[in-house]
């Protein structure tokens, strides 16, 4: 059933453009907005506009930020000699939540995906190579961690980036792949289990 208001229908239309939001959920969200106090709706609208007006890419790592340089790159507490390469800004947030990495990041903006026609020129790989090769007496880059997803596109990207970084003399590593913590060997697929065996470490 449709709403009797064109404005509400328009809102439903806009909500349904969001990922994983179907028409039914969009209608529920529109109903919720109708019931919200006007001040909260204005705050929501302001936040939506502000995110497009203020947010930009960090000029060093290409993570999203409100400033020219993101707080991670600007921090004096971070170890700038270790760069963790990720696909998307969401991956930075995931790694930061671990509280186990004190280096800096480089966001590629995707991965090489041949079937989608996405190649190195569509990503920030050139910028990564420039960043690693530029001389910095205080923080010469010693390690690049490739934290791309463990799929075929990720493998293709990792091989290519490793090839480019090899002549620069930095240590290039990749996140370990295998059984998730709390997982069960019996229910792990063969490919993952085989990779876990290959990547086993001393106990």
């Amino acid at each position, binding site marked *: 059933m449709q709403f009797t208001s064109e404005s509400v229908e328009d809102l439903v239309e806009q909500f349904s453009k969001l990922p994983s939001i179907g028409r039914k959920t969009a209608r529920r969200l529109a109903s919720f907005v109708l019931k919200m106090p006007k001040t909260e709706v204005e705050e929501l609208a302001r936040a939506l506009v502000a995110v497009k007006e203020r947010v930009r890419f960090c000029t060093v790592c290409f993570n999203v930020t409100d400033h020219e340089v993101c707080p991670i790159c600007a921090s004096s507490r971070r170890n700038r000699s270790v760069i963790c390469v990720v696909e998307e800004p969401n991956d930075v947030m995931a790694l930061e939540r671990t509280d186990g990495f004190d280096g800096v990041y480089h966001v590629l903006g995707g991965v*090489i995906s*041949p*079937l989608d026609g996405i*190649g190195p020129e569509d990503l920030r790989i050139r910028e990564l190579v420039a960043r690693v090769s530029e001389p910095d007496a205080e923080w010469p880059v010693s390690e690049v961690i490739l934290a791309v997803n*463990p799929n*075929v596109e990720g493998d293709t990207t990792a*091989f290519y980036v490793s090839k480019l970084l090899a002549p620069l003399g930095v240590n290039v590593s990749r996140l370990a792949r295998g059984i998730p913590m709390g997982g069960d060997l019996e229910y792990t*697929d*063969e*490919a993952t289990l085989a990779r876990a065996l290959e990547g086993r470490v001393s106990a």
Partner: protein
Amino acid sequence: MARERPHILRTHAVVLRSIDYGETSRIVTLYTEERGRMAVLVRGARSSKSRFGATLEPMSHIEVVIFCKPGRDLQNLTETSQASAWRGIRRSLDKLETAWRILEFTTALMHEEEAHRDVYNLLVSTLAALDVAHARSRNLWPFFQLRLVAELGFEPAFTREDIAALADERGVLHLESGQVAEDVSGFTTGGPSGAVREASRAALRAFAILCRADARSVLNMHMDATLRSEVEALVSGYVSWHVEAALPNRTEKVFAQIS
């Protein structure tokens, strides 16, 4: 007319493509042994508790269980298990390039739900050879192109013996008929101008071998850079002539940036 009933399909398949759908699902394009190219929906494939693991990655050789319901555009894949490991393919950029090209070419040339067991066998044997290849894995790309178009009815009509019979060091390949002659006047069938490719005897001989040999034997063929480039151009010309409208080039463009 009897109405088709829902049924379970168990078959082997190669994963051609896998794209995210919704929050946790995936739409996976398979080349199956029983029904050819088929797109299936895999609910929960991206969830951290997914039982599918790495089996839905492109280039995987798997056994699948699909719940088929008539009238549905996308059937539901409910179970997978690994049929071959093929871990070697993911250990080098050269092998990955060849595999990506093979997957793209197969997806473009084969129609949905047209069973073609020989094409399935060709795909599996080529990827299996690529998996174990120590060198010359690039030979498998022109091999696969020629063999797939041959399966579609465009098999070249000459052998190594025809090349040995050429008087000169060069010959001419007639793209439409797939015949070879010493020059254009030697063809019995006519064709529009420009529908021939001149090539060295060595390139034509390699072309003939690629058309007849099996995937593992192709890995023993030595081609220097000049010969390889001539053979690849010859194969590309022949394939384009027959299936140009369907020819994809995304992978080619991406790897042109990489090399």
